[in-house]
């Protein structure tokens, strides 16, 4: 969604236009869902938290101020807080097993395309080695397709930090795939 259009929709939603809010929701629900899904091990919980994020967005919309960052950056921050809060309510922080159980943000249930399934499963396994920050960067960069600078804005880190996270994450995945005997080139060719 273009920034100008987004700004207009936010203003309209602030003024009580429910259709404007619906447009914002439709534009951002999937990325927010995937962001949460990569952090919790339960599809339904991810859906509930997604709902929670948008409910809170409704509550906070009146005071939302565009500070030059995309609207979704604000939603990501709410989502992040909700995930942390979920673990806090469980009385603990996310553990490596939570990360392992977390649902991979890539589609694995294909009716056809065994190679896609294999690739997704291989990546799911490889992503277990990543830290929380590395996973976040990978998702935002390669699943959501944000530019490095956009990721930096969303995560409130500087671009160099994101670049470092990206580099280590990609290499960690590559190393894991190699150790697991996965031939990436073959997988890629199979997707063609």
């Amino acid at each position, binding site marked *: 969604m273009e920034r100008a259009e987004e700004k207009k929709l936010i203003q309209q*939603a602030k003024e*009580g236009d*429910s259709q404007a*809010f*619906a447009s914002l*929701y*439709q534009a951002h*629900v*999937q990325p927010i*869902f*995937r962001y949460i*899904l990569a952090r919790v091990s339960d599809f339904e919980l991810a*859906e509930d938290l*997604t*709902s929670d994020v*948008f*409910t*809170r967005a*409704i*509550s*906070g*919309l*009146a*005071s*939302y101020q565009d500070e030059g960052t995309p609207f979704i950056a*604000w939603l990501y*921050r*709410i989502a*992040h*807080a909700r995930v*942390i*809060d979920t673990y*806090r309510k469980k009385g603990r922080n996310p553990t490596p097993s939570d990360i392992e159980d977390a*649902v*991979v*943000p*890539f*589609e694995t249930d294909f009716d056809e395309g065994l190679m*896609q399934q294999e*690739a997704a499963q291989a*990546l799911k396994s490889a992503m277990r080695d990543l830290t929380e920050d590395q996973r976040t960067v*990978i998702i935002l960069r*390669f*699943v959501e397709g944000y530019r*490095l600078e956009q990721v930096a804005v969303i995560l*409130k880190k500087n671009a*160099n930090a994101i*670049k*470092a996270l*990206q*580099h*280590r994450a*990609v*290499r960690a995945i590559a*190393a894991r*795939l190699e150790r697991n005997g996965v031939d*990436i*080139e073959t997988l*890629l060719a199979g*997707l063609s």
Partner: protein
Amino acid sequence: MIEPTYSPQQENILQACLVAMQSGASLKDCLAQYPNEVTWLKSALLVSSLMVRLPARELPAPNVARLEERLLATFEKQTLPKAKVLRPAPTIWAGWQRAAAMVVTVLAFGFLGGTGTVMASANSQPTDALYSVKRAWESVIVLIAEWIGRLDDVWAHLAQVRYEELLAMRERGTLQPEHLNALNIALENALLLADSETRPQVFMLVSQVQPTLSTLEPLAQSTEYSRLSLLLTVQFTPNGTLEWESLPAEAPSDNTSNVLIDPTATLFMVTLPTETPASTPSSTPTATSTPRFAPTATRIPAITLTNTPTPTLTQIVIATATHTLTPLPLPGLSQTRVIRPTETPSGTNPSIISSATPRPGDSQESPFIRLTFEAVYMTQTAEAQATEETP
């Protein structure tokens, strides 16, 4: 196994190749540009390509539609009522309030003119030297506000002030749990005391604080952070009151006192304990807590209780204090305790948790501005009332 080496140069190369490939360059082109980096760069770029090309997981369309429907219903319901500028006061009080406002103004100006210190402290922050003056003066404001029946307004304003101080501390990099705690107390009091007219104002503040919470991560492990998270769960109920998640019932400690309250009367009270001069919390009780409000529940529609209260309520007291349930005239105010019922997870007797933090240090805002505002506000109110009554 040899650990891979990472360098900023490699990070730049990977990023440059990713950007180039996004613009149409091939893997071969990129590798050709960096022949010495092929070993790691090739696999890194292949992995990146793989992730880009795999379809992303999505929330199924029916779920998206169902959620949208629910959110739009919430959106319609939560569209905030416009904040009132003037509050129509009951006719019988209009003249009285005007007089009170004049007294407040005279008092404020007298004090300010006498010292000037309070004025200087108006914009002080928690780490500033004059901050204690600001807080002390605020306690006076709270006392006066209670006298003229505007405690809800004052706490709503104080919660805003605490929030602004929190932001200032965050900017300075000196944020401490105590700053969160001060916000928690003010916000909780504001939520508890809010009536139908101040609720939108308090709710608006909550909406401001919500996005800030994630920026307070250095304190995420603190109790204060958790408590603020709970307060921020506040929502409007269908009948217009506010509800938020309660803290789980705390285990009774040595300094827990049991207070018996008629369960049918109320589950809420504000106490204004009187501290002896220069007292500090110690094992010897040095303070007397006196309930300011008899439990008459007229100001508490903010909480909706679903469990039937039982007669025994546990009050958790942090400072050592003796509680008396007999309403007394206001002595020198120094501490306020807001007590509200919470549900225990097991659904047993609701307990009352006291946000027992010293009040003098709690109320804070620019005294000059606030008092002037109060005076003008009430004067306008009285005038508006008078106007409304004119046929």
